[in-house]
């Protein structure tokens, strides 16, 4: 990674390590990365470090007095990266282990709040992306078919789209609130009205199947499953736009409650779809999308709970952080 430095920052405001890829991390997309860089620019310690980096000098880190004493007496040293720059963690000279992480002492609570807020937004964006992927899988197969179940959800989506382009913030907010209402209503109606009863009436053994009045049971299941599948598609679409809408209002807690309210019903929905999958020919093109639905229609609420435990990874070039020369 030439000429590119990376810091790994925890919402607690500590620089803990650098560049190592971790599984439990939040990686920002470009738009949010730029916003984050705006925040980082306001943190004097980071700004100072970036200034020094751009001049090819060492990091300026804020280190506790005990550790400073150890550095002076030679029992500890600053970690050195492959590119020759010093990193913000301090190593024990003998064992080579990290004994201290340089703290960004000048990070104010306000900036940390902004950082957490941005981490929440990124988590929501990741959830939306996952729902988009599921949605695409279904849309590809449902192509050309009219999804009559989408009607109410679609009106919520249209209101959300109108809100996004509204220039007046009050109108925008009002439209988003109205979109949330429509999306919640549409999703709840679908969850309540979808009929799964046919699944429990299906014969489960040879004798039952032999005497069943249905000539071709898998075909019968497929025809009955279609409205269920379309409902699942609409629920996913509604969930996706609900996440977007709550994210636009910056209300992740309301989203959490909205998801929790329908969690148990959606679980039943997923389980029933999981049962339908076993009635489909293994070569059916429905299979993948129904399996995906059975594994989770709603975004994982825990993603929002785990934000504070996650590490935020930001890669930036010194020039992106450092103010122009002479400032």
């Amino acid at each position, binding site marked *: 990674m030439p000429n590119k430095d990376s810091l790994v920052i925890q919402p607690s405001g500590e620089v803990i390590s650098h560049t190592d890829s971790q599984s439990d991390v939040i990686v920002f997309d470009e738009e949010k990365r730029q916003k984050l860089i705006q925040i980082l620019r306001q943190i004097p310690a980071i700004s100072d470090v970036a200034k020094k980096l751009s001049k090819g000098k060492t990091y300026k880190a804020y280190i506790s007095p005990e550790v400073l004493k150890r550095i002076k007496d030679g029992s500890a040293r600053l970690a050195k990266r492959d590119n020759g720059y010093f990193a913000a963690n301090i190593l024990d000279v003998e064992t080579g282990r990290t004994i201290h992480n340089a703290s960004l002492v000048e990070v104010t609570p306000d900036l940390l709040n902004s950082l957490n807020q941005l981490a929440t937004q990124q988590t929501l964006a990741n959830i939306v992306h996952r729902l988009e992927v599921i949605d695409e899988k279904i849309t590809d197969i449902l192509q050309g078919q009219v999804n009559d179940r989408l009607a109410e959800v679609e009106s919520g989506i249209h209101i959300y789209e109108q809100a996004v382009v509204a220039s007046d913030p009050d109108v925008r907010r009002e439209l988003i609130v109205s979109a949330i209402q429509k999306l919640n209503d549409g999703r709840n109606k679908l969850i309540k009205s979808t009929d799964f009863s046919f699944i429990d009436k*299906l014969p*489960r*053994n*040879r004798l039952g*199947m*032999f005497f069943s009045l249905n*000539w*071709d*049971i*898998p075909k019968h299941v497929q025809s009955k499953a279609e409205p269920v599948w379309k409902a699942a598609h609409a629920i996913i679409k509604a969930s996706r736009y609900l996440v977007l809408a709550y994210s636009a209002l910056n209300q992740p807690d309301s989203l959490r409650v909205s998801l929790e309210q329908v969690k148990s019903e959606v679980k039943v929905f997923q389980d029933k779809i999981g049962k339908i*999958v*076993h*009635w*489909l*020919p*293994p*070569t059916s093109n429905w*299979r993948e999308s129904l399996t995906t639905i059975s594994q989770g229609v709603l975004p994982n609420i825990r993603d929002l709970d785990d934000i504070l435990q996650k590490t935020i990874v930001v890669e930036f070039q010194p020039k992106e952080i450092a103010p122009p020369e002479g400032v």
Partner: protein
Amino acid sequence: MKPCKAKLPDGKPCLNQADEGQEYCPFHLADQIRMPKKILAIALPVLGAVVTGVVTVLVKFVANSKRK
């Protein structure tokens, strides 16, 4: 739940799960039933027609012999 015992045309095992107490998934169970059910569905009307014919002939025969 255990994996279905059936093999797909390409030789790979079926991805579906079998119900408790069954060896095949619902799809393959229904698939195995389809042919005997079809045979029975064709055979039953044929058998019915044959039985009806035999009974008709017998009734006519008995009626004729009584008249004589």
